[in-house]
């Protein structure tokens, strides 16, 4: 109560200092707007890089999947009731193809990997 009775108010210096602090905080927060924009542009770079990686993979598929030396293994541990009640492993031969794509501008790099099963 005694405090509320204080009639002194603020000096102009105090008000200006408060305003300056407010501006500094606001300018710091402005960075957030810029970040949102950069993230959108970065997503675009990523799309470019993905398409470049897909293009590289398509080029490698065209050359062929000679060798079929790679394999991937699926393991079923027998814990899926009524479907697979014994544990077993399936091994598929084929070719693993990697594609690395870069965005034309920016520095996004994407690595994609695909598996072409052996043509039986």
């Amino acid at each position, binding site marked *: *109560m005694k405090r*509320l*009775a204080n009639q002194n108010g603020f000096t*102009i210096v105090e*008000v*200006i200092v408060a*305003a300056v602090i*407010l*501006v500094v905080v*606001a300018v710091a927060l*402005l960075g957030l*707007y*810029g970040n*949102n*924009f950069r993230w*959108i*542009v970065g*997503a*675009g770079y990523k*799309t*470019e890089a993905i*398409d*470049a990686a*897909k*293009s590289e993979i*398509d*080029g490698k*598929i*065209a*050359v*062929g999947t000679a060798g079929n030396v790679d394999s991937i293994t699926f393991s079923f541990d027998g814990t899926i009731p009524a479907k697979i009640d014994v544990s077993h492993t399936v091994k598929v031969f084929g070719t693993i193809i990697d594609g690395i794509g870069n965005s*034309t501008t920016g520095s996004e790099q994407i690595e994609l990997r695909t598996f072409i099963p052996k043509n039986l």
Partner: protein
Amino acid sequence: MIFKKLKNDKGVTLVELILVIVVVGFVMAAALSFFLFGTRTFTLGSNQARVQQEARLATTIVSQDLRTAINVRAEYTGGAPATGEFMVERIGDEPPYALRYVRPSGNLETAHVFTDLSFDVTYDSTVEKYFVVFSATGVEKDRDYTINSTMLLENSQASTLIPGEDYLQIIFAK
């Protein structure tokens, strides 16, 4: 206590009033520029997002369905797909163009945002395969975005495709 305060009839001096107006003015100007900057970046961001989204849609349409296509043929303009056939084409007489995907289950169109939308065909003689090189450049206000994609026509005989031509329509079956 508080009633005593409200009974104060002294008011404020003109100098005090002017000072307050000036200080509030500065604060408001700062707040306004903050707001305007926010609006501007939001507009830039949505323009960029829109043009990227349309370019990605166009590339997705072309790459997903052309990759598995059979009997691919290309036209400059005026081609029409036969029953059961699919077609991707550039529409619009002048920029901004759009991509239209004509398919038996109904058409699909991107927005008219593209200044460039081209299907080039390349042929790799060593592996005897055709590729479609798809390029889309979109512009939305002052933001632009280009996407390039090369698709292998794995299943296609592609006998009517001539490398080096800029086609406007690609017709295919699946």
